[in-house]
């Protein structure tokens, strides 16, 4: 023990644990702070990934206040994109959250409620398992079986959230329109596990994943198409899939359909000024930038304008890493500076390809009374409108 009570003794056990939870990522950092320099949260509040990494390197545990702040990270990956040492900073965030949950630190209430819903119902809303396919009741959507070639993974929000359900409905219409052999997992679909993973509940994430994996093993689809970039991400990163099964985000799949001449538009959306917001888990996390833009540009009448911060520099909507369910103070919401950027380039539609982004921008438009100027829409909705 140190003689002086004001000196802090590095906790080497903690260090060991956090290094291992972060899969050694903490060790690669040389503290340049490129991460904190680009972190968008500093536009609206305060977040310092460099410091979090350094505390781990030194074996310093977080103070309760810092642990609470840790939850504001949206895992948008801007830090990882610039990191000169290829540190997976979002893994370090997840590791710190995991450690805190296990150590019994105080997790902010909204995240606890969400995690409990995931635990009991396999979705973040606390809604019944049987209600998962209610959105499809009037659509005659097939449940996947061994004959199914395309497995459409709907995801929690598109299943339960009334606003996001229209993305799923739009995609199903597109699938029908192009006579695809597709099916959904029905009530057997569980949460994909991506948000749960980055919220630090890795075991629960693994549990949800393995349930989905066993359905997929039964179906043996040629292709999996996901609504959400978050699902796409964890399918690519963590899922054990049949050897020949390919995973696409729906924007990639639509892009291919358009290229192959299988998707034809019959209507125009005249003089629609659209700007496209790159969802973090599609863009930075998975390098998918061109396909969504090509799909938008293929829609008759759509005029695409870029916001100054586009592609790799896209500003997060604020909904990732569990924050779609958090109660963030209005002035601390990233969706608002992003919305302003969209309005500034003269867009009447802020298009995106992720239901969290859609939700965050809908809220931002309401809070800022911008309904007259701009609407938030998903690409799938726009495509379905023009069919």
């Amino acid at each position: 023990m140190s003689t002086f009570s004001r000196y802090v003794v590095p906790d080497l056990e903690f260090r060991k644990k956090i290094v291992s939870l972060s899969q050694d990522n903490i060790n690669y950092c040389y503290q340049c702070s490129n991460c904190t320099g680009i972190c968008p949260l500093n536009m609206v509040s305060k977040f310092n990934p460099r410091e979090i990494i350094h505390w781990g390197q030194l074996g310093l545990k977080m103070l309760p206040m810092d642990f609470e702040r840790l939850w504001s990270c949206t895992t948008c990956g801007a830090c990882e994109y610039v990191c000169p040492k290829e540190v997976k900073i979002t893994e370090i965030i997840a590791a710190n959250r995991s450690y805190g949950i296990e150590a019994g630190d105080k997790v902010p209430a909204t995240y606890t409620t969400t995690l409990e819903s995931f635990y009991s119902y396999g979705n973040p809303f606390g809604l019944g398992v049987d209600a998962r396919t209610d959105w499809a009741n009037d659509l005659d959507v097939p449940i996947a079986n061994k004959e199914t070639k395309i497995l459409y993974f709907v995801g929690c929000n598109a299943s339960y959230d009334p606003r996001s359900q229209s993305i799923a409905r739009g995609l199903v219409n597109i699938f029908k329109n192009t006579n695809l052999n597709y099916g959904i997992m029905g009530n057997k679909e569980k949460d994909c596990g991506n948000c749960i993973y980055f919220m630090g509940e890795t075991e629960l994430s693994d549990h949800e994943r393995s349930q989905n994996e066993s359905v997929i093993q039964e179906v043996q689809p040629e292709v999996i198409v996901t609504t959400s970039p978050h699902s796409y991400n964890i399918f690519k990163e963590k899922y054990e899939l049949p050897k020949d099964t390919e995973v696409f985000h729906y924007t990639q799949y639509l892009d291919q359909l358009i290229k192959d001449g299988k998707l034809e538009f019959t209507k125009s959306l005249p003089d629609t000024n659209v700007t496209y917001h790159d969802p973090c888990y599609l863009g930075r996390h998975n390098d998918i930038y061109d396909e969504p833009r090509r799909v938008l540009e293929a829609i008759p009448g759509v005029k695409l304008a870029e916001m100054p911060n586009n592609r790799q520099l896209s500003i997060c909507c604020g909904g990732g890493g569990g924050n779609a369910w958090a109660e963030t103070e209005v002035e601390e919401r990233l969706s608002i500076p992003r919305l302003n950027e969209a309005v500034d380039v003269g867009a009447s539609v802020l298009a995106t390809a992720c239901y969290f982004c859609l939700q965050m921008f809908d809220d931002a438009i309401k809070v800022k009374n911008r309904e007259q100027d701009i609407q938030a829409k998903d690409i799938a909705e726009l495509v379905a409108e023009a069919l």
Partner: protein
Amino acid sequence: MEDGRIGVFICHCGTNIAGKISIEELKNFASTLPHVVTARDTTYTCSEIGQSSIQEAISELNLTHVVVAACSPSMHEKTFRGTIQKSGLNPYMLAIANIREMNTWVTEDSEKSLEKAKKLVAAAVRRVITQEPLEEEKLAVTPRVVVVGAGIAGIEASLQLANADKEVVLVEREPSIGGQMARFDKTFPTLDCASCILTPKMVEVGQHPNITLLTYSEIEDFSGVPGQFNVRIRRKAKSVNEELCTGCGICEEKCPIKKIPSEFYMGLGNRKAIYRPFPQAVPQYPVIDRENCTYFLKGKCKICEKECPTEAIDYEQEDTFIDVEAGAIILATGFEPYDPSNIPQYHYGEYDNIFRAIEVETMLNASGPTDGKFLLRKDGKFTDESPKTVGIIHCVGSRDNNYNSYCSRVCCMYSLKYAHLIKERTDATIFQFYIDIRAFGKGYEEFYDRLQKEGVVFIRGKPGQILQDKDKLIVQVEDTLSQKALHVPVDTVILSSALSARSDARQVASTFGIGCGAEDFFRELHPKMAPVDTQVDAIFLAGTCQGPKDIPDSVAQGAAAAAGALRLISRGHVMIEPMIASIDEDVCSNCKMCISVCPYDAIAEDTEKKVAVITASKCKGCGLCPAICPSSAIHQAFYSDEAILAEIAGIVETAQLKG
């Protein structure tokens, strides 16, 4: 079976080998092998004691062959060949069993390691008995050196050689010598005027009787063997007859094509279609850039021809080729300034007032596009306004796995140099955004100290991005020392960008048969003990083509490379290893397959005898031709089929013993 008396010598290599395996057991095993008369061990076989124990055994026991079980043959094969040669054996009666790099260093389990050592020793014993005495060939060295690249490293190497009365051919791609240093105004840490220390050397090169200077020229082809290289050089048509040209500059003055972005000034300034890259160019003769010359594009103009007082303009000139024989080559091809336009968060090439380092050098240069003034741009054009605040971002494209993972070594110091020069010329406030200040050279820490005292602001953190707000640039960064997220408004940002390998470095390396490292810089033979040698004897490296370095190091390497070349030329000959291929004329069916695979152009058809013939001096013993020959007519000395099969047999037999 062959006759022979083999001695096996097992090296402990301190604990490198003996710490892993039982030397005693290996020794006992070795002494059971056929023809082995003695098996002994020493702590360090390469030491004098170790070597003399081999020599004693040879004379005591009349040994005819020697196996040394120790480190890699690339370390000490030469040493031990010398050892046995002194005892009267042919040096090629030696085989090395590499039980260190290939075994004890990489095998964790000591039992398995011992088994592997036994196999390697058995293989060497079985192979050595098949080896035949070979004689090295003496090859005269052509007393001439070709130096490729005339930056400061190439210039230094050329002058060292020329002043030792050796003949040098100096080849430079650009119209003038001088390299990157010619762009600089001042050099750190002494703030010497760069051209004041460089131009005297350039002039000396241009006038030196021992130096043939070929500018606007490139290596077209390269062949031959160390000591006797053949270099074919393409002299690009300059469209100016240098014998008549006086370098008066009238043609350049009168040329009506004015707006060609100057390569020398990184496109910040313009040049004419007939031009010298900069006023102190050596040679002083201009060249015509045919891609932009009105006469070459449209067949009209000829103003330069009309104006030239000495009739030196020659539109008909063509590229010519010169074949040069050289005993040694020095590569000093330099670096390429890194282009940071692929780093989106820094918006280089997008915002007006973001400059990269090499552009700042040309701007500060007194004869540069802004006459040495540091000016701001608006809509892509220079204004006459100077910045009041400047941000300098370190490590752009360096120490960054997304771009170049290495440290470029000079950026910290040139960033401090810019701070001093800009402050001196504009009185601006300068912010240095750094990760670590690396002030490792002589006088560098003192320079850092000086700049701190001059009031430069140091912010420790790598900026996340640069934002634009009207006429200001905002540098967004965490100062990690105060742990504050900062927005620092500045008028201009300098990106201290990396030194990269030349984009054609791999191609050049393959022309000369040398290697490149992961980052495309040329690979030296040994990073510490042979820093200017390459894997090809008689080819040396100097300057930044080998890796980022500053001027003092480039000059030192230039001199070191010159010393290497001088060593060969002064001795007058090289010894050629005799491990080459030969063709049995009686068996050869003249199918020519060997000719098609030979990478060294060493095999040709004897049209009279209708057989393939190998030129011994060109053959490198790579082994391709004996492997492909369908008639087994090609024999490779030292690596005969018999020797290779014997090695395999040694391994297999030992495995079966265990088995």
